[in-house]
């Protein structure tokens, strides 16, 4: 079943510039495959994603980014909300970030965990899939 909540503040638009910073970037000479590693931070509008490693996936033509695959513990912040998971697939064209593995969303003191979560940057919602549990943490928001 799907359970939806608001997530973060509205970012400008899908075509806002994406900034990536990392300790290192390696690019394969033959295939052009690019991998950022070491404190990788991706920001677009007011969404900030941090991860240990990010793989760049190109579109078929090979001259645009189709996806950014973040792994090694991912954290996403937007406005006052934050979400964490083991991995996240940011589909640049559709503006959807699919998070999987120990997914947890922190929002005004409530902590929602689920199997998977899709953050939609266009309408600022987060949709949960799989077993969803909400834990109210009184008193610390």
């Amino acid at each position, binding site marked *: 079943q799907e359970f939806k909540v608001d997530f973060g503040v509205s970012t400008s638009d899908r075509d806002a510039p994406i900034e990536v*910073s990392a300790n290192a970037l390696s690019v394969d000479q033959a295939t052009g495959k690019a991998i950022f590693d070491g404190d990788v931070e991706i920001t677009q509008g007011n969404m900030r994603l941090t991860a240990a490693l990010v793989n760049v996936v190109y579109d078929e033509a090979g001259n*645009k980014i189709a996806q950014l695959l973040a792994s090694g513990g991912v954290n996403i912040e937007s406005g006052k909300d934050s979400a964490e998971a083991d991995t996240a697939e940011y589909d640049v064209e559709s503006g959807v970030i699919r998070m999987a593995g120990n997914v947890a969303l922190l929002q005004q003191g409530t902590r929602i965990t689920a199997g998977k979560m899709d953050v939609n940057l266009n309408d600022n919602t987060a949709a949960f899939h799989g077993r969803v549990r909400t834990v109210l943490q009184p008193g610390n928001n």
Partner: protein
Amino acid sequence: MIAWLKILLPLAALVLLSTLFLFARPSNPIATLPFAQVEIEEKLRSQGITEPYFAGQTTAGDLIALRAGSARPNPEALHLVNSDDVSVDITFPDGGIARFTSKSAVVNTDRQTADLAGDVEINSSTGFDLHTQQLSLNLLQGRARSDVIVHGSGPFGEFEAGSMVYSGGSEGQNGQFRFDNGVKLIYMPGSN
């Protein structure tokens, strides 16, 4: 009378022919070549080679070719050759090419390295270009390293990095460009 002519005429021809070489104007072909004196002095002073070309194979099996506008060995250290407008192509088994160019370079023929300086550009056939001010290239292993800021642009956007190492491929493993000391990239989703 005819009999006499049969003898006299060939003899006359012979005499005529022989005098041809005797009185010929001694033309000295070297002097007529249009060599300006200045050019000779300049060539002597520089003792340079124009358009030197060096090609070989790196230990990784990639083809490597170095081309320069001119090359002048350093009189004090002959193994160091100062060259201008240098271009080094590394061609890979799959046909890909990484081209390193710069305004000038010092080629060390003992250590088989080339230190490129001044508008160093790297163009890779996978569609990204790099620009830096200094880069040292190991011609034997087909590896390169730059310890100064590198600017780059590619399908994944414009980026800047603190330093860069290009490690030539080895069996079954492609060459890798690795950018270190902090990388910042900006990608415009809407544009290209």
